[in-house]
């Protein structure tokens, strides 16, 4: 059975379009707004929504998402609460939802229990930046059993061997990290991104989406030209917190560019 994410990419491919994947932190700026933000993202043309799970020590994130996590934690947001919230949001929308979480909250929840509860709630996929496939054998087999997509990451430093391994372990899409760096860093637009995506495509027909550092419609457009989708996080989180009235226009601009 296909997941919602796979269905979405299949129809995008058929239409010759690229995926717009916004990221928001659950509970930032407060828990009350997350549901309406998700619906707004969908209205503005998002194809997949990446929901951040706050963690005390987000080592792959830059200051913008670090601070968003701190705000969310201060609201008492937990992984358990997020799964419950997704179940209730599922009554209003069918948009594919991916959780982006560090591994320890999942480990503490219990791999098996987490996969079961998340899948039952209507979560479609998970991205765990500090869980490479080498450490995820059991997690992957649990997730396969529940049709929860495991999205793993590749980076500019990835060797051929890693590309093969990560592409094979990924389901839904492969997440290509645009740079050696953390979220919110400055994007370097050079040929290397295109070249690496080419290498991934050479060994896998799964969709490849680019994230990290994409913050403007121009950059999003350039990324959409070489990938199957574009993930935008810090720039959206920043807009939500500093210029909420400009959010809708910003999202529509990104959608148009992709």
């Amino acid at each position, binding site marked *: 059975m296909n997941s919602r994410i796979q269905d979405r990419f299949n129809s995008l491919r058929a239409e010759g379009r690229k995926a717009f994947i916004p990221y928001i932190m659950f509970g930032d700026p407060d828990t009350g707004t997350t549901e309406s933000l998700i619906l707004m993202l969908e209205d503005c043309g998002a194809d997949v929504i990446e929901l951040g799970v706050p*963690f*005390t*020590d*987000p*080592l*792959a994130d*830059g200051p913008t998402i*670090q601070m968003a996590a701190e705000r969310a*934690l201060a609201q008492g947001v*937990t*992984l*358990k609460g997020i799964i419950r919230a997704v179940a209730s949001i599922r009554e209003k929308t069918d948009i594919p939802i991916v959780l982006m979480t560090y*591994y*320890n*909250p*999942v*480990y*503490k*929840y219990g791999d098996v229990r987490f996969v079961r509860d998340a899948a039952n709630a209507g979560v479609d996929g998970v991205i765990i*930046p*500090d*869980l*490479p496939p*080498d*450490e995820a054998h059991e997690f992957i087999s649990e997730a396969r059993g529940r049709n929860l997509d495991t999205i*793993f*990451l*590749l*980076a*500019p*430093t*990835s*060797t051929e061997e*890693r590309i093969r391994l*990560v592409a094979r372990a990924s389901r839904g899409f492969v997440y290509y*990290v645009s740079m*050696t*760096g*953390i979220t919110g*860093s400055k994007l370097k637009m050079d040929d290397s991104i295109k070249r690496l995506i080419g290498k991934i495509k050479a060994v896998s027909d799964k969709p490849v989406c680019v994230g990290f550092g994409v913050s403007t419609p121009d950059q999003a457009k350039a990324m959409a030209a070489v990938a199957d989708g574009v993930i935008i996080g810090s720039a959206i989180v920043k807009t939500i917190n500093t210029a909420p009235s400009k959010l809708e226009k910003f999202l529509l601009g990104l959608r148009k560019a992709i």
Partner: protein
Amino acid sequence: MKKGYFGNYGGRFVPETLIPALQELDQAFRDASHDAGFKEELRLLQQTYIGRPTPLYFASRLTERLKGAKVYLKREDLCHTGAHKLNNALGQAMLAKVMGKKRIIAETGAGQHGVATATGASITGLECDIYMGTEDMRRQALNVFRMKLLGARVIEVNKGSKTLKDAINESLRDWTTNVTDTHYVLGTVFGPHPFPTIVKYFQSVIGREARKQIIKAENRLPDYLIACVGGGSNAMGLFNAFLKDKVGMVGVEAGGEGIRSGKHAARFAGGSVGVFQGCKSYLLQDRDGNVLSTHSVSAGLDYASVGPEHAFLHDSKRVRYTYATDKEALRAFELLPEVEGIIPALESAHAIAEAVKLAPGLSKKDIIIVNLSGRGDKDVQHVARIKGTEI
């Protein structure tokens, strides 16, 4: 056993960007540890620069005072820069050089590992940046100045608890960003594979020496080893050479203001298994898997997790883990200079505090070796402040 694991603990839980660097490091380390040239260069620097072998000192007045087992001190405080940390930092700086890196970075809590890394950078000619929490910069101001003198840049980390774990987060973020030309000199037997193995390798010289020295002095092995456990590198360094022998071992964590207060860094007494900063081990965490803030009077022990091999030695009961409170450590910090003329680091004072508890109950024929991991000069100002004197 699974590669990179000690029983159930260890592994390599890091972002994909770093995996190739860890593989490269693993290979470089394995090559170096089989390379006669590398080993000879290391041996020579250990001898002529660090000042090894460090003495094993029979603390006769402390022994008299405790009225029990004979207490020996392994004098890592006499290493160049004042702690065992240079054993590892120098070795890793040499590895970085071999790998062709031009810059090394490190986290530091007490500042000792930062000073050691800055020193390693200085004699290998590498650039050096040190991450340190602002709270630790306050309590270890002397070491901040030393690092700067040694030519390192000290980058303050004003996030989270502003201590060691936050400095490690920032180091990992820097490494992720600059991985092609930078090596991350992790300061303890922690983090993703192969760090726990590499750091143990460079620190094991402590136990190898101590074994020879005690046999020379007493014609037999000791009954107990005691070491403080932050991440666990000085403890692993001492214990490793004795693991196959009938020698009791005690690891001493920071009990802070007591386990019930919640203000401590006793991972075995108060934590549970988790995955943090690259590996699976015991972790102080809440029900939802978020990491708790820790407390210790000693910056070097003030950390939420512990090296994975210690987790393994804990579960297999090969090593007994206990803790000393701030109060007990401060008492030991004053006792040792009074009876032996040695000011211990606050970290090492936790190990002394355990000797004070253990020795009186043992026979006069029993032998304890305490790892005196560092000297206390760096802590004098902090302790004076606690006692109400500004210096």
